[in-house]
């Protein structure tokens, strides 16, 4: 079991607040004058409207946090849920800018565009149109 705790990627000195688990996964923390409620789900802790990531094992959770792009030199576009690739809007080696549409995916009766997380070049496209993809599947790599 990994005993190193990192919060949003940084080593953080734990607080010494008065902590009580009120419901499973829900904590009451009294720090100084203030009273906070914290919810823990999977590898995320939400306090006062802010969500902190604990550890980095789980790539999907990590991606979801919306900070994948600036994390690595390479960025991947992955499917957050099962769906169907309706259209591919770029080709390998195309230069793309952050926010540019890369795929049109249909899931839950809705079509959504998956956009480039940052500027770069399409290094690889792992799927073809009309493919069905599972959650977490890597669809393309931007570098």
């Amino acid at each position, binding site marked *: 079991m990994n005993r190193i705790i990192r919060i949003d990627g940084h080593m953080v000195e734990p607080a010494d607040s008065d902590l009580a688990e*009120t419901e*499973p996964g829900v904590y009451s923390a009294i720090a100084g*004058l203030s*009273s906070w409620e914290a919810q823990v789900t999977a590898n995320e802790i939400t306090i006062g409207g802010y969500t902190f990531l604990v550890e980095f094992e789980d790539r999907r959770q990590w991606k979801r946090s919306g900070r994948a792009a600036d994390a690595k030199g390479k960025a991947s576009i992955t499917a957050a849920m099962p769906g169907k690739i309706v259209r591919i809007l770029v080709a390998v080696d195309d230069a793309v800018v952050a926010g540019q549409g890369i795929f049109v995916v249909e899931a839950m009766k809705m079509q959504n565009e998956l956009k480039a997380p940052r500027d770069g070049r399409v290094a690889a496209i792992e799927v073809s149109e009309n493919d069905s993809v599972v959650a977490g599947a890597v669809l393309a790599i931007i570098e």
Partner: protein
Amino acid sequence: MFAKVLIANRGEIALRIIRTLREMGIRSVAVYSDADRAALHVRKADEAAHIGASPSSESYLNIDRILDAARRHGATAIHPGYGFLSENARFAQACEDAGFTFIGPSAKSIALMGSKTEARRVAKAGGAPIVPGTESGLTSAADAVAFAREAGFPVMLKAVAGGGGKGMRRVDRMEDLAAAFDAASSEALRAFGNGTVYIEKLIENARHIEIQVLGDQHGNLVHLGERECSVQRRHQKVIEESPSSFVSRMPGMRERMGEAAIRAARAAGYYNAGTVEFLADQFGNFYFLEMNTRLQVEHPVTELVTGLDLVRLQLEIAAGERLPFTQDDIALRGAAIECRIYAEDPANNFFPSPGRIERLSEPSGPGVRLDSGIYPGWNVPLDYDPMLAKLIVWAGTRDQAIERMLRALGEYQVGGIRTNLPLFRLILNDPAFRRGDLHTGYLEELLKTPIDWNPPGPPELAAIAAQIAAWKMKEQTTAQAAPDAAKGSSWATSGREDLLR
């Protein structure tokens, strides 16, 4: 307006006040005793201050500790809620002396109306009708006997410092009077540290009807209509509603009561929110009973029919603002009913039933308001009044409100402790209640006939129970064979594992 307000209370009322403070952009400071570290009002407040051990006397009734907390947190005003120190003139004065705004009437008004005998004098002077009785505390049982001989039975003994039915006794026969006097006086001593009691003629089959009043510090006073609280057990309100179907039937009665209430309040130099309680007989005569110089437990029914937020108005008044409306602007719409949900066991003589709430599903949807102080996993402490929550519904008519309340009660499931939820089903289905045929003895009468609170269920449901028990046994066996399998149904556990992936 205040920047930060301390709430000198606990449970659902503390949370209800926190909610309005948040909506007004005011920071909230909760206080808590040892038993309440994990209480909902502590979890939901912006700030929290520990003020002592579990017994109220060492925490929620400890004026110094509460004022210290207010200083430490830099609060500028203090809301007392109901109960505890809310009607304690010394506390109100101590707040002002320490430079905190007390969110309520002046210490002087509290002192005047806090003593029931004083209050009767003030109300009488103000021109409100009062029940025949001794205007001052009795020095001995003999005084009680003298009064009863003249006024006749039944009579009522009441604690001068009283409230919540403690230190009250109904007496029907001369031979019981002396014993009842001693009992009431000793109970009053235990409850309020003051054993003085007084005596009143008892109005038979009387309804408990109270008027909500609201006044600013500039002399403006309005009333917000009535609440009927005739459904009581041991002088504790169980169900409250607004409007009163009886008052609605009696032409002009609401206006007359409202004016009488305002007269009484004006005579006491009253401002902020207060309630004038009356007894009403079957002919529509009404008599001043007492004034509650605070927000009432049952204030939500008035909020639902008037569309006002009484806590917001309390804060605005305490901040020196003028009432934003006049009497003519007040309109009552529809009907509201409140049930006080208690941790007590109807099948066991309504004995308190504290403990851990193992499971909770709460009602919601159209017309349902829940002011609750509990959550699944919360341990209801022994140390305080066992009220868990208030379930309030609104609908266009009283009949529809009753049906809505029954629907909401059906959605309310509290596992692990006993509650009085079955009591409300009994009352709301009772033809007399539905007719609005009520008096303060109504509930005791209803409960006289023995009730099977656990009637045997139909065979088809027993069979389903057996099927579930069998399923759980099987599940348990599997679980022991392969521990992880069982955890599937427990998201608490699986959550913990994900964290450590």
